[in-house]
């Protein structure tokens, strides 16, 4: 469904991504791990069109996606949805819940894209908020806001959800809420999920695959189950060690 071919990007002569390649199938979930500043967010932004690669291609269902979002068609834009790291900055806090979800519905309908109703989307991610449609966004917690952002991402029936460290600004409860929702969505709605993370929690088998980005390249790309045994690259081992260290605590 999604194919990344030889994507390269540099900032000020420093190569952040060098010939990055991987694929993602329908309904598959991929965890992209790597060091801070290592290019994960850049890659996520290139896929959703907010940045342009220096070279290489991003293909959705075999069709090449143009560099920036301005040049992509509304359909292509609706197929890939991006969840921001900080939910507080991703919405207009003085709007109501209805207005926030309504914006997405309005824009999608204008482009003639098939949508699911906002109540249904919200039911998938935050059913307890269905009665709070007229509450202002600033009154919700971080976890609730992030789930609302996921709901509005579901409205246009996307093929791919990209979540960029979507739980790092939340507390433990919020984090659990969001991860549960993402997993349910993957199981029930067959949406592919590309999750960019800083560190990995191996205690629960939530993801299909893990890819590790190090030095601008994909150094590891294994199914989740086999990662603990087969991961060979030194950075991958470091990730595993630190995750085990913290989970033991």
């Amino acid at each position, binding site marked *: 469904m999604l194919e990344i071919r030889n994507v390269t990007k540099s900032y000020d002569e420093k190569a952040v991504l060098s010939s990055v390649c991987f694929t993602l199938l329908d309904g598959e979930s991929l965890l992209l791990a790597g060091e801070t500043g290592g290019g994960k967010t850049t890659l996520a932004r290139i896929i*959703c*069109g*907010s940045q342009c690669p220096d070279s290489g291609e991003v293909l959705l269902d075999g069709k090449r996606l143009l560099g920036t*979002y*301005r040049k992509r068609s*509304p359909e292509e*834009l*609706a197929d890939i*949805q*991006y969840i*921001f790291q*900080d939910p507080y*900055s*991703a*919405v*207009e806090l*003085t709007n109501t819940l209805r207005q926030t979800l309504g*914006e*997405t519905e*309005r*824009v*999608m309908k*204008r*482009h003639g894209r098939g949508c699911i109703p906002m109540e249904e989307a919200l039911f998938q991610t935050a059913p307890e908020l269905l009665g709070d449609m007229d509450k202002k966004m600033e009154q919700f917690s971080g976890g609730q806001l992030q789930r609302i952002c996921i709901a509005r991402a579901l409205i*246009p029936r996307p093929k791919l959800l990209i979540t960029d460290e979507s739980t790092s600004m939340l507390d433990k409860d919020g984090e659990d809420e969001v991860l549960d929702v993402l997993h349910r969505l993957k199981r029930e709605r067959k949406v592919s999920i590309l999750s960019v993370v800083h560190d990995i929690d191996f205690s629960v088998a939530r993801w299909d695959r893990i890819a590790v980005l190090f030095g601008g390249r994909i150094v590891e790309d294994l199914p989740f189950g086999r990662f603990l045994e087969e991961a060979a690259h030194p950075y991958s081992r470091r990730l595993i060690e630190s995750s085990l260290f913290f989970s033991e605590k």
Partner: protein
Amino acid sequence: MKKIWSRLSAVQRICAGICIFYFLAAAFGPIFSPFPPDDFSSPALLPPGRVHLLGTDEMGHDIFSMVLSGFRYTMLFSLTAALGSVSLGTVLAFASLYFPRIGRGINHLATVFLIIPDILLILFVAAFAAPTCTNTILSMIFFSWPRVFRIARSRLSACFSSNKVAYTMLIGGNMWDVIRKLWHDGYPVIGTLFMMQASRAVTYETTLAFFGLGDPLLKTWGRLIRSALNYENFFYDNTWCWYLLPAMICVVVYVAVLSVLVFDEGKV
């Protein structure tokens, strides 16, 4: 309305009150005018008295009536020039951010106009072109939009790079969707800019009048100040107290009050 009033400090309330007074004086002032401002049938150079509250000038005009008519012209100039330049400036600022390719061009154009002293261009236009009120206002708008542009652009630029606006653009939202998203963070700067431009417009008009430019028939404060300064005995007797001072105080208070409001608002 009440919410805005309650949020203002004491100083801001005094300034706002003065602005309202000016506005009311512009609207209703001429009703209280004892003489029509261009009536020069009264005896010349009378000191203040019961009939002529501020005396008369060397041609026989009642100064008090002229000061009252000045409120109207000041409001006219300052409000229309401010409205025009703020609209033009903010629209261009938005356009330059939404369409980044033409944005650079507009930015360069605005920079050139900011480097050149705008009052000079306005003077130039007033001298070369037909001296009508419309021309003066148009030239004020045309030469002062860059200042509005620069400030509006820097405020909007922060909004444009925010995540919420990025989201709207990533789902294929059009210009209006983006404006709706920006509105809450962006509109306060418009109020500040409006006040800033309104005060500048009055300074421009006064300066133009000093150089003998602009419509000679309109009895603005600038004209009044110029006549007072041109009066042959200006430096030798005390006529300036009731001839020059009233108009001067009106101008200075207006500009100062607006500057204080702008200063408090956004530290522009």
